[in-house]
């Protein structure tokens, strides 16, 4: 394996008595499309925040592109793009003003920022309301704009927290095209998503976090092989009859499945 693009050593984050992330050791190789999965509250967003410098780890070490994040934060940030939870947009700018602003914050000169802004707006099909403020964009438009902002400086690593949440099929198609182009150019993409079908289609490698601990990591095939033996014992898993396990089934087997099966709500019957 090449020197990893993203690596963590015993990454831990506590909030008071709550251990949100515990001893996570991630390895993401260059050019990988890495899906980071986990149930709600498992620690996905906390991990991605730590990887992008938005949150300080309680202990452990993070290396991005071979640089220690704690000591080379600005150098690392210069080479990564981020779509954080909540998208971090500036609502009272127009889309074009926002991208120009982001470009210049990443050190692009005025003309380059303007040129890339125009290209990105056209690629993302955000050109039909040039005077609209970001706050008045639809959710899908905001997601596209956030992704455009994350790539305007040509990052080597892209961190995306739930990029497909609330996005329609057309916008999702645009986002996927852009991400695949980035992978083709040698970039590394690290994304969290609840939409397992998309992760399965896009990602070459997957990590699963559960209750703050990294419980599985590897290519989809490796994970499939890892849970295959257990799947054979379970009657509801198609893998037991020789079918290929889906990522959703791998995920459910890894994290223990639904806990509310068999329960009923008194007023819904």
């Amino acid at each position: 394996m090449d020197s990893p693009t993203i690596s963590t050593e015993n990454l831990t984050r506590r909030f008071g008595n709550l251990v949100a992330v515990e001893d996570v050791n991630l390895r993401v190789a260059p050019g990988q499309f890495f899906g980071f999965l986990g149930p709600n509250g498992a620690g996905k967003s906390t991990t991605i925040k730590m990887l992008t410098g938005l949150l300080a780890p309680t202990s452990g070490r993070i290396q991005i592109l071979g640089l220690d994040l704690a000591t080379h934060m600005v150098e690392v940030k210069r080479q990564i793009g981020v779509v954080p939870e909540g998208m971090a947009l500036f609502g009272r700018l127009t889309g074009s003003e926002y991208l120009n602003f982001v470009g210049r914050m990443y050190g692009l000169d005025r003309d380059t920022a303007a040129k890339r802004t125009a290209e990105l707006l056209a690629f993302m099909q955000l050109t039909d309301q040039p005077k609209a403020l970001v706050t008045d964009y639809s959710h899908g438009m905001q997601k596209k704009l956030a992704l455009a902002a994350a790539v305007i400086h040509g990052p080597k690593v892209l961190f995306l927290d739930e990029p497909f949440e609330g996005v329609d099929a057309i916008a999702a198609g645009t986002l996927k095209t852009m991400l695949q182009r980035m992978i083709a150019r040698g970039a590394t993409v690290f994304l969290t998503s609840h939409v397992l079908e998309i992760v399965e289609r896009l990602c070459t490698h997957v990590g699963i976090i559960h209750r703050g601990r990294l419980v599985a990591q590897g290519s989809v095939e490796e994970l499939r092989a890892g849970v295959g033996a257990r799947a054979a014992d379970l009657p509801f898993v198609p893998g037991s009859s020789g079918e290929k396990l889906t990522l959703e089934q791998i995920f459910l087997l890894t994290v223990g499945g639904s806990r509310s099966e068999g329960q009923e709500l008194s007023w819904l019957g």
Partner: protein
Amino acid sequence: MTPDALTAASQSRQQLAAVAGLRWHVFVNSLRTFRGRVELASRIFISLAFLAGGIGGAIGWGGAAWFLILQGNVEWLGALLWPVFLFWQLFPLTATAFTQNAESSNLLRFPLSYRSYFLIRLAYGSLDPATAVAGLWLLGIDIGIGVARPSVFPWATIVLLTFAFVNIVLARMLFVWLERWLAQRRTREILGILFFLFILSFQLIGPLIAVYEHRSIPETRIMGQKVSAAQRPLPPGLAAAAIAGTIENRPGSSVVPFVLLASYGTAFLWLLNFRLHAEYGGASFSESAGRRTQPSGLPVLRPGWHLPGVPGPVVAVFEKELRYLSRSGPMLFTLIVPLFMLAIFRSSGKNEGLLARAPNLTFPLGAAYSLLLLTNLSYNNFGADGGGTQFFFASPVRFRQIVMGKNLAHATVFALEVLLVWMGTCLLYRPPSLSVTMATLAGILFVVPIDLAAGNLFSLYSPSRIEAGVFGRQRASLTTVLASFGVRGTLFAVGALMLWLSRAYENSWVELLVLWLPAGFAFTVYAFALNRVDEIALDHRENLISNLGRRE
């Protein structure tokens, strides 16, 4: 009991109770954090200050009412009610640091009846310092009247309660309509033009006063009677007339003004209802009325701003800040308030009032007031960025550059404001002397860097999300507001000392040292604080992101 089983009235009561409970839980939960407890302490301190002002005013106003009635000058009751009226309506606009409208649009997703929605909006907005203080003043007037003429007390209470109702409804009505007008560029421009026409109209006051000040006493009295007649059909005049009529045993003279006063209340209520009903129905106004056009390939290239010698990221933040400001009607409105206040003071007469007696103070006082109005901006740097603050932490730019861009924008706005105040002083009073102008500028160079440095620190330690486009929701945390007053009180005191010293020693070298050395010191303080910003921002990033990212 299911919702179906509830009657409309009881459901409405239950919803109001739920909203009150929500506010209570938000308050109690806020006390879990250290910041929340400090905020509560600030709130208590500020409330005590307002209470002192309210009680002091109530005693003064009550004594005045008692005296006027005993002296038989009941026609002067209007002179007591007008300041109350002006304070009630102008204070929320001129002191936005103490005024906050709760976010109630979120309530619309619940099955809330319009009646409940209306009551909640009315109640939320009414619980502000202006209502509390002016309410105490009215109580003082009522007691003063009651002591002087016990038989009039019940009627005076009814009239003053109605007057209070008119004020509450008018203030709410002005807020919701201003919010609506300031939300869109076109109406904002029309409002701006009207405002400047209003300012220019104050130019007529000088010639008018000049005409009347040399006239004989009877002519001046005639003028006074005209003014008195002009104010009579307005709410303070009507309330005064309604009380005066009863004191003078002229029931007819008190009923008609009272009915007219109540009519004002009804009219304001109708206008408020009209706007709130539209909001309840989903009407929402924003800046985005941009015309839809067909996609036409690559959009036009528009490079960002360029400032020679200033790093790109600093210019980018500077540009972003000014764009934000230019799109925030309420903030723009706040920025023209100093001119408004100059005009108000001017209207008190050429030879009356502090500013008329000491015109050299007009420019420094106007500049100081302008700085106070920047509190919500400079002491809560990241408030309007909301969730966008995350981007600053994700970007490869040092926080000191981000803060410098913001400071540059705020200093530019302040410089523009000072220029406007200087022009207003020249137009409405007289041009300040060169020495006063220079001393004020030197004072500004001393005060502003330290003020910005303090603002930067408070912005990081005590951030508060604000809604730049919504009237009454631009307030920094009360702790910050209070701290800013402390910092500025000290700075202004030193500035005043500088002014006094420069006047006392008429030696140009002493003056130079006294005026400009502190400015050099202030810039050193600013640079020192700026160097600490990166470290503080990193230490407080979680607090900043979580406080600014969430909507309440």
